[in-house]
């Protein structure tokens, strides 16, 4: 690389300095890498394999930044971008699979093996819906949980990236999780009685 920074690092720095266009260039890069890695991981693993979104996002950063010694701030900023992308990829996939099942596109006999995955897809879609509901009430908390679940950011990393105290982040997480559990249970009982 002739001593030059990889594009992802350059774009992350430009974005942090307020260059909005850098983010527009960053997202397709992150999207392509995460899609590729998710597909490759799923094709090499037995059925029922669980994607680990936060591990994937972390690995994507190491690959794109060309390092195995990640910079704390760069890595956290990268995963802020990647969290949204990862959520999109996983939820789109889960929704598509649910739709395929509804359309009868599943072979007979496959259902038993696939049932745990379908259940997980339904849960993922339920989580996505609940996070969207939370965003209607409190956008910051929804974002924080997205960073936690899909980007794997720790509370310390969120505090650094968002420029707020660790104590505030911890309470935001705790409140948001209580809200989310309540919402998911309400959604569960609604679908059980439907």
């Amino acid at each position: 690389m002739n001593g030059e920074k990889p594009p992802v690092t350059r774009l992350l720095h430009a974005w942090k300095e307020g260059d909005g266009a850098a983010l527009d260039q960053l997202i397709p890069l992150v999207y392509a890498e995460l899609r590729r890695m998710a597909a490759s991981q799923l094709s090499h693993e037995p059925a029922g394999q669980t994607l680990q979104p936060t591990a994937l996002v972390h690995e994507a950063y190491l690959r794109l930044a060309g390092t195995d010694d990640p910079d704390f701030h760069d890595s956290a900023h990268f995963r802020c971008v990647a969290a949204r992308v990862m959520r999109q990829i996983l939820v789109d996939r889960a929704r598509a699979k649910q739709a395929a099942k509804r359309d009868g596109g599943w072979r007979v006999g496959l259902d038993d093996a696939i049932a745990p995955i379908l259940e997980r897809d339904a849960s993922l879609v339920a989580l996505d819906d609940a996070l969207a509901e939370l965003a209607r009430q409190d956008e910051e908390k929804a974002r924080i949980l997205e960073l936690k679940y899909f980007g794997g950011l720790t509370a310390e990393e969120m505090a650094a990236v968002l420029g707020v105290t660790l104590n505030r982040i911890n309470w935001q997480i705790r409140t948001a999780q209580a809200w989310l559990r309540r919402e998911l249970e309400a959604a569960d009982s609604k679908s059980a009685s439907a």
Partner: protein
Amino acid sequence: MRNPLSRARWSEVENLFVGAAELPPEQRQGFVQSQCGLDKELQEEVFALLRYDTGGLEIQQTIALQTFGIRIPNSASLLLLL
């Protein structure tokens, strides 16, 4: 789908939730009741959140609670994977 609370209302709920959650469990109900006065709706919102609070435990730890019969929603089990 519930309608979101107004910003001011949500902020009240959140402040009372945090205030109560910082207290020992046996003091929470009295605290919320005294702060809410006659506002039963506010009281109910705060209690609803407190019911789903795990005391700041990481979600992975709630699986242990679940095995002791404390119910968490099915969909929340997904959070264990994330």
